C-alpha cells in the first residue's frame, strides 16, 4: 500500500512550517507519521502536502523550568523513556509510554503527535488531562496555549485551528504523589480497550488531591471529575473507591467496535479505574 500523491516539505523552523502549512490547501504536519501514514495508505486522509517537522531542532528536547516540565512536541516516546528528568518528575509518563505500540514505533512516534492527533485511542491525552498539562501552539498569526482539559472536542476533533501546530507540552510537576496508568489491550501494539490514568496525594491518611482520566472510553479522552471528587477528603478505603468507580462508569460512552461492546468496555473500564486508583494509593503511601 502506497499513499496518494502529495508535496513534501522539510522546513528548518516552526515559522517556516507554519507558513508552508498556511500556503497548502489541505496540508498536514508530519511528526512520527505512524498514525498519519497508515491513514494515508488507506485513503482515509489525502493531504495535498506533508510538512515534515523532523528537521526542526527547536521542537525536540525535555527541560525543567521552575515547577514545570516542558517537552518539545517532536520528542519521541523512546526519548521520553530514556529521560532521567521524566523518571524523576513525571514517572506516569514512563508508565504510559512503555505501553504504547512497540519498540520500533516508540523510536519514531512523538508525544506531540500522540496528543494532537485526536484519536480517542491515543494514551497520552488522558494522562495530560490528569496532569492538567498545557499545549503550546504556533499559528499562522500568533502563538497561543490551550489546556489539555479543553483541547479534545470529538473523535479526531480538537481545538487546533487550520494552520496551527502543537509545539510543546508544559506540565506542572506534582509534589509527592502516587500515580498509575492501567491499560487493557488485546495484544502488544494495540490501542486500549480501556485505560485509566490516576494521580493521588495523601495527607494525614486521607486523599488530599486526586485526578482521574480515561482513554478510549468515549469519543474523546475524559476527565472523570466526579470520580475524583468521590475520593477527595476521604480515607482511601473500599467504599470510597467503589463510589469513584461508579462515578467514572457513569461518564463512559465507549464505541462498539472490535475491542468489545459498550457494556463490556464499561465493565472493564471500571475495573481498570479501580486498579489504577489502588495502585496510585499504594504508591502515594509508600
Amino acid at each position, binding site marked *: 500500500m502506497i499513499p496518494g500523491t502529495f508535496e513534501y516539505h522539510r522546513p528548518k523552523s516552526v515559522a517556516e512550517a507554519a507558513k508552508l502549512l498556511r500556503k497548502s490547501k489541505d496540508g498536514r504536519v508530519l511528526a512520527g507519521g505512524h498514525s498519519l501514514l497508515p491513514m494515508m495508505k488507506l485513503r482515509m486522509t489525502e493531504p495535498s502536502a506533508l510538512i*515534515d517537522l523532523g528537521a526542526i531542532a527547536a521542537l525536540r528536547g525535555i527541560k525543567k523550568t521552575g515547577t514545570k516540565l516542558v517537552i518539545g512536541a517532536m520528542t519521541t516516546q523512546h526519548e521520553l523513556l530514556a529521560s532521567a528528568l521524566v523518571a524523576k518528575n513525571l514517572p506516569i509518563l514512563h508508565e504510559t509510554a512503555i505501553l504504547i505500540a512497540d519498540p520500533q514505533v516508540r523510536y519514531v512516534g512523538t508525544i506531540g503527535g500522540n496528543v494532537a492527533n485526536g484519536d480517542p485511542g491515543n494514551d497520552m491525552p488522558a494522562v495530560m488531562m490528569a496532569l492538567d498539562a498545557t499545549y503550546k501552539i504556533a499559528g499562522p498569526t500568533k502563538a497561543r496555549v490551550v489546556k489539555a482539559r479543553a483541547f479534545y472536542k470529538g473523535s479526531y476533533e480538537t481545538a487546533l485551528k487550520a494552520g496551527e501546530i502543537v509545539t510543546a507540552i508544559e506540565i506542572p510537576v506534582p509534589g509527592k504523589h502516587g500515580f498509575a496508568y492501567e491499560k487493557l489491550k488485546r495484544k502488544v501494539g494495540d490501542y486500549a480497550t480501556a485505560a485509566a490514568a490516576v494521580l493521588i496525594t495523601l495527607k494525614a491518611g486521607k486523599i488530599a488531591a486526586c485526578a482521574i482520566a480515561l482513554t478510549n472510553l468515549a469519543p474523546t479522552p475524559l476527565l472523570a471529575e466526579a470520580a475524583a471528587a468521590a475520593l477527595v477528603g476521604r480515607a482511601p478505603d473500599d467504599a470510597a473507591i467503589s463510589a469513584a468507580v461508579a462515578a467514572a462508569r457513569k461518564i463512559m460512552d465507549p464505541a462498539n467496535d472490535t475491542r468489545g461492546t459498550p457494556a463490556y468496555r464499561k465493565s472493564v473500564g471500571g475495573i481498570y479505574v479501580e486498579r489504577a486508583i489502588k495502585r496510585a494509593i499504594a504508591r502515594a503511601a509508600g
Partner: protein
Amino acid sequence: MSKTHVKFKLNGAAAEGMCEPRTLLVHFIRENLSITGTHIGCETTHCGACTVDLNGKSVKSCTLLAVQAQGADVVTIEGMANADGTLGALQEGFRQMHGLQCGYCTPGMIVRAHRLLKENPKPTDEEIRFGIAGNLCRCTGYQNIVKAIQHAAAKLRGEEYLEAAE
C-alpha cells in the same frame, strides 16, 4: 508528481536514487536500490519484517517515506554479516539455535535484535521478548528466537552460550 533525489548511507556505502515523496523507504531500498533482504510483511506497521536500522534506531521501513531517510545512516540485514563475509553473531545465533523456520521474519528480527543488543548487551529472556515485541513470527513460537539472540549476546560479550535448562 515530480521526483526527489534521495541519498543516504546504506550498509556503509553511499546509495541514491530518484523517487516520488510518497515512495515508502522499504520500496525504495528493495526496488530502486535492488537490495532485497528487507522483507515486506504486512505493510501496516504491525509485523516488523521490514525493520531496518536508521540513525541508530530500529524502524519499520513500510511506515517511513524514503525522503525522510535523506542523509541518514541506514543498515539492513545485508549489513549484518562480518566484514569478511562470514556470518555475524546474530546470523550465527539464528543458525545455531534454529531461530527460524520459513525465514520470512528473520531479516527484521535480526536487524531489531542488533539494536536491542547495542542498547542492552546482557538482556534477560524477558527483556528480549519485550524488545522484539514489534516483530511477529508465525513459525517458531519465539522460543528459539530468544535463544538465538542470547547466543549472539554471549558471543558478542566474548562468553560461551549456556542454554538455560527448560
